[in-house]
């Protein structure tokens, strides 16, 4: 189960780069996910203006483990090709925080793996979100 990209970066994310990385003439199905900053969030009132993602130093390494663990679990034959990156630093509304792409010969595997990859990132990637709104309030996600 080749993991082509599994990283945490402080730079804008490029979905097409992830799609290109997983592309393969044998793999007809590519599922992908883009998580963007929304202008509202249940954990903060009013309108979100921007947020800061910070990461534990182990984040990149953890992302690699997440990708290979999810692949090993859902794709024992190792046919899927996987690319996933999470962004850190300051992001505005609409900016992309996470991109994942998975190609496989079969749709179901591509969707299942891409979905689980994003869920596992949410569960296990040591990244924190500090949101700010138009009233100047700020909140740390998960601590409200």
């Amino acid at each position, binding site marked *: 189960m080749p993991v082509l990209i599994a990283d945490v970066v402080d730079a804008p994310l490029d979905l097409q780069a992830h799609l290109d990385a997983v592309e393969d003439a044998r793999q007809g199905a590519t599922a992908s996910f883009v998580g963007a900053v929304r202008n509202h969030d249940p954990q903060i009132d009013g309108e979100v203006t921007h947020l800061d993602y*910070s990461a534990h130093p182990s984040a990149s390494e953890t992302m690699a483990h997440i990708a290979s663990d999810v692949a090993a679990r859902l794709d024992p034959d190792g046919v899927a090709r996987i690319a996933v990156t*999470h962004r850190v630093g300051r992001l505005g509304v609409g900016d992309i*925080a996470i991109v994942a792409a998975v190609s496989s010969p079969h749709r179901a595997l591509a969707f299942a793996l891409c979905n689980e990859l994003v869920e596992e*990132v949410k*569960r*296990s990637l*040591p*990244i924190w979100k500090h949101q700010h709104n138009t009233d100047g309030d700020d909140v740390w996600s*998960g601590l409200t």
Partner: protein
Amino acid sequence: MDTTSVRVRYWAGAEAAAGVQTEDLDVSGANPVTVGHVRRAALAAHPTMGDVLARCSALADGRRLDDDAVVAEGVTVELLPPFAGG
């Protein structure tokens, strides 16, 4: 071996709540020192951190530790709030 203090590193929201990133907490009298002792020492140092501390996971040498885990001497205990990636 009588450890008198443990170094603690607070991350993200925990750092914000503690008002400090890293500090050495007094755990004299605890033998062996466990993560539980460290949490209680952190709370003693920052009485308003209760809620945040309760939601933090503890990490030492890259491994997650339960409260009853022993903290070896010289090891820094990292306190990590819930993750919020994706």
